């Protein structure tokens, strides 16, 4: 069953076509990768899915429900969360506060203006679980701005995960992470719960082929090939436009 679908999704900026007629189905529980050369429109698709951009045409369905017109926060509440290619963190908050914030919002406590943050036991329990899962316990009280880059990338995913999404969109989660911190990050991504559907955008082909069970290739804003990793790896057209370029490099 498809948990997230796009039907004829398109986005034009003036004369530039950033996404053209993208029809995509992400299956429940999938590990779906969206790849493509630079400028293919991958981040545009994520921005359309999450409501940062409004599509020029087309529809987006989450659990069969049309969410095309919904606000960003409403999509989060319906179970779709994302990470950002370039860190978008709360630099003045500690990881503890940032995660507690996301958890409190999900539990509907965001309008609670009378009790202290964390006075509900459920919040502390969940924050603890997330802090452990994302290996942030040792830095949880440091200002986010002072965290090593690898930890910031982990927090980037932790914040999205704290929204308890059923669909998690990861926008180049490993981009720019130094080799020494890379293993922890990749292991954490691999260990995401199986019931969370993941849509991964990534340039790193090792990560894509070790992680994904389905791959969609985007070229010039249009869906080019959609299939299993084996299909995609074998497809001569993909090799020509994308993998070839990667392999030659």
């Amino acid at each position, binding site marked *: 069953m498809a948990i997230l679908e796009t039907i004829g999704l398109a986005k034009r900026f003036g004369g530039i076509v950033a996404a053209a007629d993208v029809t995509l189905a992400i299956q429940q529980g999938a590990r779906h990768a969206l790849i493509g050369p630079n400028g293919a429109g991958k981040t545009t698709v994520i921005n359309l899915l999450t409501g940062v951009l409004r599509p020029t045409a087309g529809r987006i369905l989450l659990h069969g429900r049309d969410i095309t017109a919904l606000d960003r*926060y409403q999509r*989060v509440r319906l179970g779709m969360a994302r990470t950002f290619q370039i860190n*978008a963190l709360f630099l003045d908050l500690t990881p503890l506060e940032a995660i*507690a*914030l996301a958890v409190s919002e999900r539990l509907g406590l*965001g*309008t609670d203006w009378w009790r*202290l943050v964390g*006075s509900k036991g459920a919040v502390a329990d969940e924050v603890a*679980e997330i802090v452990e899962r994302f290996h942030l316990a040792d830095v949880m009280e440091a200002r986010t701005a002072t965290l090593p880059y690898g930890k910031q990338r982990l927090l980037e995913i932790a914040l999205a995960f704290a929204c308890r999404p059923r669909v998690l969109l990861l926008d180049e989660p490993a981009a720019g992470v130094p080799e020494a911190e890379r293993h922890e990050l990749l292991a954490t991504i691999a260990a995401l719960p199986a019931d969370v559907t993941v849509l991964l955008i990534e340039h790193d082909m090792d990560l894509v082929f070790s992680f994904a069970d389905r791959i969609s290739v985007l070229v010039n804003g249009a869906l080019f090939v959609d299939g299993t990793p084996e299909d995609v790896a074998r497809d001569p057209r993909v090799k020509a436009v994308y993998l070839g370029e990667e392999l030659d490099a």
Partner: protein
Amino acid sequence: MTPLAADIGQKLKRRGRWSALEIAFWIVAFASIWLLPQKHLILTETAILALFALSLDLILGYAGIISLGQAAFFGTAGYFAGLVAKHGIIDEPVLALICSGLVAAALGFITSFLVLRGSDLTRLMVTLGVSLMLGELANRYSDITGGADGLQGVTVAPVLGRFEFDMFGHTGYTYCLIVLFVCFLIARRLVYSPFGLSLRAIKGNALRSGAVGIPVNARLVAIYTVSAFFAGIAGALLTQTTAFCSLDVLSLERSADLLLVLIIGGTGYLYGGLIGAVIYKFMQDWIATLTPQYWQFWIGLLLVAIVLVGRDRMAAWHQAARAALGRLGARTIKWRPALGAAGAAPGGR
């Protein structure tokens, strides 16, 4: 509950604990009722300015909304409090005060939609524009407001029907200080709550706030309305304690002075407005006795000096002060479990 979860619960709540320095601050503030009776008139003005600055800190220091129009709420509520007292519509000051605050809050709610969009500069202009319009409306409808002569003939009934206002400002100061304290308590609860945390998040990164499920615009409308309420309470207090209200309650200077107070005191930790108001008022008083005519020269010099010293260095001082505050607080926290569980082994790891 795992030990980590229990620990995290404690750490999250710790920020909202009262520190020794805070308690000392309020003890000193209330002690001034008995210790400085001859200063009650200026202290009344200080308490009102502090509450007014607190209202701006809520939107500027926590939600990141810069405003040059806080006087709109101050003045509107000020005139409302004056008119209901003059015409005997609401005879009890506390009730009139709350109603004035609500009127300001209603105005804040309506105008909040104007500040949702746009950059800091847009917000400065929009908020300034709203207060300018209200100022001219008050000027134009002088049959109601008294225009340039001010609202005359306001008589304020005794507080709660018992405590009469006196010419030395004793009742007025006690009344203002209690109102300031109550408003501060509410603001303090608010900023350490999940709601307050979401405001800090929006100030830091509005894009990400939406991406973790925060309805950004609704939160900004809410805090702008609350801020207008507090500003309105401050304006009504001024009218009630002076039994007078004039056009300058809506002036640009009043809003600009407020920013100055927050620049002196610092934003985003609630005490900035209070400390800033004390420094500003007493410095104004002191300089005015030295050079009655030209006191604004020195205020201007101070402003330039503060800005040149730089926000960063100011922030570093505040950070140091806050750290000292935190250490004192932490010490008092450590005592309590130590007293309760003397000898018990410290948990787990």
